[in-house]
């Protein structure tokens, strides 16, 4: 469905001098420096996948999506989406995709939501009964009814996002690009939007690529994660693999009857102790079952629980690690 090979996008950013004289200088001197927003990324995405495209601020996520949707022309590299080159066959390409760039609306700002949807129906030539059917379904999933007649500029952020999602899917695209679709939303709104994305992906087989900084989105939606940093690919694989490879291992929380002395256990390290409770980190490939009997050896254990590494924690470590590596280099 999507294939990206050695994709690069450079931006030339010009230094701006201020004032009227500055404007003239800007034209004459044009001091540029180059930003490598996407720097040699390759991946493939199969039909029906739901992929989380992650990375810290400025990693190049939005830039990649803009290239895939045909907004930007890359500096170098190859892109095929459903066999087409997005920026060369733009109109055919965008007819088959839906896109929501969370910060921005695709609707007509001053007019009621329903008018935008109705115009989009004509732009995409959606048959009238299919339009009605979709509208009914989206209303059921996203509860659009209460604000269909409200001008877009008066919508709350959550309402606007729901309206934009509906607008992006009216024409049954086979591909959906979402750039931070849950940004700034409350827990309930997020949950609703996640449910909607999942339903569209499962029931219609729509391929979805979404960027987000909310790892809840990733945990609840994505089986596969592609992670970039400074325009380079740092991980591509299952969410579970990410957790295992970059997680520091599981944590064993043990409540002893009395405060234990220093513990020395092969394959586990004490990371915290508060009175009777001890937190032990089990090495990434270690076995909990191997450690538990050792705990019972000297003391009475009242309670015991195992914590999986939080994806939030895992991702934080990756992001931070790369930032550190960069400072060192």
């Amino acid at each position, binding site marked *: 469905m999507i294939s990206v090979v050695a994709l690069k996008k450079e931006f030339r950013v010009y230094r701006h001098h201020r004032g009227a004289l500055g404007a003239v200088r800007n034209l004459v001197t044009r001091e540029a420096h180059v930003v490598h927003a996407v720097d040699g990324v390759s991946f493939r995405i199969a039909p029906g996948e739901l992929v989380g495209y992650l990375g810290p601020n400025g990693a190049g996520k939005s830039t990649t999506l803009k290239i895939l949707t045909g*907004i930007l022309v890359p500096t170098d590299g190859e892109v095929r989406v459903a066999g087409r080159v997005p920026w060369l066959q733009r109109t055919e390409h965008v007819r088959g995709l839906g896109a929501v760039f969370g910060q921005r609306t695709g609707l007509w*700002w001053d007019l009621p939501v329903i008018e935008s949807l109705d115009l989009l129906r004509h732009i995409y030539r959606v048959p009238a009964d299919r339009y009605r059917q979709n509208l009914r379904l989206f209303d059921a999933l996203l509860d659009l009814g209460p604000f269909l007649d409200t001008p877009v500029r008066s919508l709350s952020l959550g309402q606007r996002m729901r309206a934009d999602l509906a607008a992006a899917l009216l024409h049954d695209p086979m591909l959906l690009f979402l750039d931070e679709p849950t940004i700034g939303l409350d827990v309930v709104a997020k949950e609703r939007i996640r449910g909607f994305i999942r339903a569209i992906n499962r029931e219609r087989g729509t391929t979805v690529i979404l960027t987000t900084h909310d790892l809840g989105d990733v945990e609840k939606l994505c089986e596969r994660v592609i992670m970039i940093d400074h325009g380079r690919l740092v991980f591509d694989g299952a969410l579970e693999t990410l957790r295992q490879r970059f997680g520091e291992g599981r944590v064993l929380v043990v409540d002893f009857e009395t405060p234990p002395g220093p513990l020395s256990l092969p394959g586990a390290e004490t990371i915290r102790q508060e009175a009777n409770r001890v937190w032990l980190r089990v090495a990434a490939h270690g076995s909990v079952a191997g450690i538990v009997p050792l705990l019972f050896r000297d003391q009475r254990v009242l309670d015991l629980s195992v914590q999986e590494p939080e994806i939030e924690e895992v991702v934080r470590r990756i992001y931070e690690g790369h930032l550190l590596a960069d400072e060192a280099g």
Partner: protein
Amino acid sequence: MREGLRLYFRMIGMQVRSEMQYRASFVAELVGNLLVTGLDFVMVAVLLMRFQAIGGWTLAEVVFLYGSSAVSFSLAELFVGTFDNFEQWVVRGDFDRVLLRPLPVIFQMLTGAFPLRRFGRLAQGTIALGVAFVLLKPVWNVGHWLFWGVMLAGGALFFMAIFVLGATLSFWSPQMHEVANIFTYGGQFMTSYPMHIYEAWLRSIFTFVIPLAFVNYYPALFLLGKPDPFGLPGWVSFLAPLIAVAAFRGAIAIWRVGVRHYQSTGS
């Protein structure tokens, strides 16, 4: 084609309804526009009247030129108004939206705005032309009337070309917009009055660099039966459609190159 037209009107309808949300400011701007441009004209007309002899133009003839230029320009504004202020679209990344829709970019630009207040200039131009015809009482045959239509359309097309080119500059540097304004609004002002009131260098720019004189002034010379005070041959009056079409096609070609340079925004 039929479907395209229907969609055109549907999208223009959206813009009109959007505009109507701000009815009060619409009326204020309309009145403001009428006053400002009207005052311009009165001032220049008074000056011309005082130095009546210059170039042998009567007030009625000047009003004819003024009206024709205003009508051409406002037609251009009505159709390609989106290209004016386009630097805002580039700076804010609003052009993303255009590229995400399965319609030709130019089509969306033609339907991206429909500033009703610009009907003010159209009305003004039409009134000026009415006055000019009453005063001039021209004895024209069908050919003259047709040629006058060609002159108006050519002027409109040429102004459209300037709007498109001005917008195209924004893809490289949004600040260039101010420069573009010199040629759009400046050009409109220039072509409202006979060329002989200008300094030679300015005249040369609008004759040979940005050949606006050929789509407005020279056709008017023919229609008013005046010789060219600058000695160009009579047939240059008929270059209007050629020059206008060439300018417009050129502008669209350059625009297409610009679109591929669009950089969107960082957030």
